[in-house]
């Protein structure tokens, strides 16, 4: 028998991760539930590059010429649109999934940079309202914590139809995180496994949504912008229908978007990546002559200023970050290594938001773990991260000769792979070829 290690060959179909999952399923008899987002490789903004200025394009001086970053959201119908200093917002994440300290840190950090944060399933906490100068209030299928007083004291309203990590699925918060406070906010018994509805209780379809949006406007005297959040599946149709229903802003969440707890099979196998979803959404808006009139916020796997700039160049008005914001707070940070080990992971691989045993005090309701996150210090880290992203995006925009981030355009981009060229609708680098178009 040969012992030559070069002859050992792992199966591509049944590699070690697959074998482990089959044996886990055989042992437990139930699918895996976890947090975080899709872990598979997907076509992404990494597959695009900017062309930069050249003989035919003039760059702006990097440290001398202004590159503006402000954005107005909700100018279609709302009497009081949201005005942000930067086009990077904080995505909806619930108190319950996150600790009160984490919600407060997100609000403080976002406010320092002049941008918004968003509530989540379970309603609005005092901590996040106090900490957030601009707060978007989500109206979700579960209606947990839904309250007209909170609707009125929000700065914008987001009707959630789906999210990128699980389009077609409802919220999930396992019993270990349903503390007395979380249970009271959601009118549920303490300690149960909360599995939210996936459809709204009082409307179905775009015609109903139009009436629901009118109701929300009437209740708030047409002051607040109404966002509609969709998980990326059929964005060309969903965006058109959201426009028809009267949305001021559309939030499009690609499959790289995160979650506090969802079935792994849902996270990895439902929805489409952010890159093609964004292009389809922009085309739908352009076909309706509503591009830049109904604003588009894109989320799902946004990590850097380069991602921000590329999303804006493809036609988004702003981006939203969830997972990346939590990482800035210290999610998966190399701290409390023994606690990571107790969860069977190490820093950098943790996806145990669903267990409530978050070693760094972010995705937990445990009072001791929660104290590990200092909201003031965490807010400063978020501010630094957001500031870095903005500086990076400005660097790229100036290199392309743009005096505002929103002046970036598809012509500034090419793709490094055929897949990305087809999905983003920009030429393959070194060619004029856009697969499927030319």
């Amino acid at each position, binding site marked *: 028998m040969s012992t030559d290690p070069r002859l050992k060959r792992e199966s591509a179909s049944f590699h070690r991760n697959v074998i482990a999952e089959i044996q886990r399923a055989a042992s437990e008899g139930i699918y895996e539930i976890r947090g975080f987002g899709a872990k598979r490789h997907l076509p992404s903004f990494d597959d695009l590059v900017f062309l930069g200025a050249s003989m035919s394009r003039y760059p702006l001086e990097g440290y001398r010429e202004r590159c503006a970053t402000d954005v107005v959201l909700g100018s279609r119908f709302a009497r009081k649109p949201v005005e942000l200093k930067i086009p990077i917002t904080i995505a909806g994440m619930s108190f319950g999934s996150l600790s009160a300290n984490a919600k407060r840190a997100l609000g403080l950090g976002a406010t320092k940079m002049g941008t918004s944060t968003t509530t989540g399933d379970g309603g609005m906490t005092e901590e996040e309202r106090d900490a957030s100068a601009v707060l978007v209030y989500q109206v979700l299928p579960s*209606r947990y914590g839904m309250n007209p007083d909170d609707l009125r004291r929000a700065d914008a309203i987001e009707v959630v139809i789906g999210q990128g990590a699980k389009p077609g699925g409802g919220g999930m918060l396992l019993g270990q995180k349903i503390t007395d406070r979380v249970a009271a906010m959601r*009118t549920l018994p303490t300690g149960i496994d909360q599995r939210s509805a996936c459809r709204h209780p*009082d409307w179905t379809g775009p015609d109903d949504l139009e*009436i629901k949006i009118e109701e929300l406007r009437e209740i708030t005297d047409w002051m607040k912008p109404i966002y509609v959040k969709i998980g990326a599946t059929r964005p060309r149709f969903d965006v058109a229908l959201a426009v028809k229903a009267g949305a001021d802003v559309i939030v499009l969440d690609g499959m790289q978007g995160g979650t506090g707890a969802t079935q792994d099979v849902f996270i990895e196998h439902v929805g489409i990546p952010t890159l093609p979803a964004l292009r389809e959404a922009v085309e739908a808006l352009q076909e309706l002559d509503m591009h830049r009139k109904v604003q588009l916020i894109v989320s799902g796997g946004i990590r850097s200023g380069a991602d921000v700039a590329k999303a804006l160049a493809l036609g988004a008005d702003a981006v939203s970050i969830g997972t990346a914001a939590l990482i800035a707070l210290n999610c998966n940070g190399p701290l409390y290594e023994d606690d990571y080990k107790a969860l069977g992971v190490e820093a950098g691989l943790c996806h145990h938001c669903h267990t409530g045993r978050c070693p760094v005090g972010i995705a937990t309701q445990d009072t001791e773990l929660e104290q590990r996150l200092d909201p003031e210090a965490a807010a400063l880290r978020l501010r630094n991260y957001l500031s870095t992203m903005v500086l990076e995006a400005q660097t790229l925009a100036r290199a392309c000769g743009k005096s505002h981030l929103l002046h970036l355009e598809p012509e500034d981009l090419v793709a490094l792979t055929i897949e990305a060229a087809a999905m983003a609708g920009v030429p393959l680098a070194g060619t004029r070829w856009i697969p499927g178009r030319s």
Partner: protein
Amino acid sequence: MITFDLDRAPLRELNQSLHDVAGEGDRRWRIVNPRGRHNIAVGMTQALDVEVAGHTGYYCGGMNQNAAITICGHAGQGVAENIVSGRVRVKGNASQSAAASGRGGLVVIEGDAGARCGISMKGVDIVVGGSVDHMSAFLAQAGTLVVCGDAGPDLGDSIYEAVIFVGGQVGSLGADCIEKEMTAAHRGKLEALLAQAGIGADTSAFRRFGSARRLYNFHVDHAGEY
């Protein structure tokens, strides 16, 4: 009494006027010519008496706080959705999702209610003089649903801590919903609710339903029960 004619002025003006009523303003309003319009008297916060003289579309009385709204006709989908307090009375029938996710207050439907009456209710009390259709009290979390007539299939599916009283026949019970003992205390609560609603009914035939609490925590052995 203030009379507001929806043939003469738009819905926006009506709702803004209702929202702007100051402490000393007239407390009695009558809305004429509703003609099935949606979103009439939504987001009320003042303790006003509002009478709608006719049929309404979707969400009449939605998210009501403190007001007493009477619909002298039939009500469309989602009447009194997410009601927080006060009262909404429908003198006719109500379409589906009546009082959906209601958090408090009282909703009275003198006629029948469509499917999913009381879906996701979170503390509201609902009294239906007639019957309700399928999936009523689906995901009902808290509050009481009283049905004087019959209930359609899958009543109380995935119910939490809400309580259901039914005077007539039940098509079928949904997942984790079971019949429970009707004690004197429960009958007393039922009679009080009927009296509050102004609905006369013989309570002797009523049965009580609620959660078996078997599905509160997911266990793979129960997967087939959904």
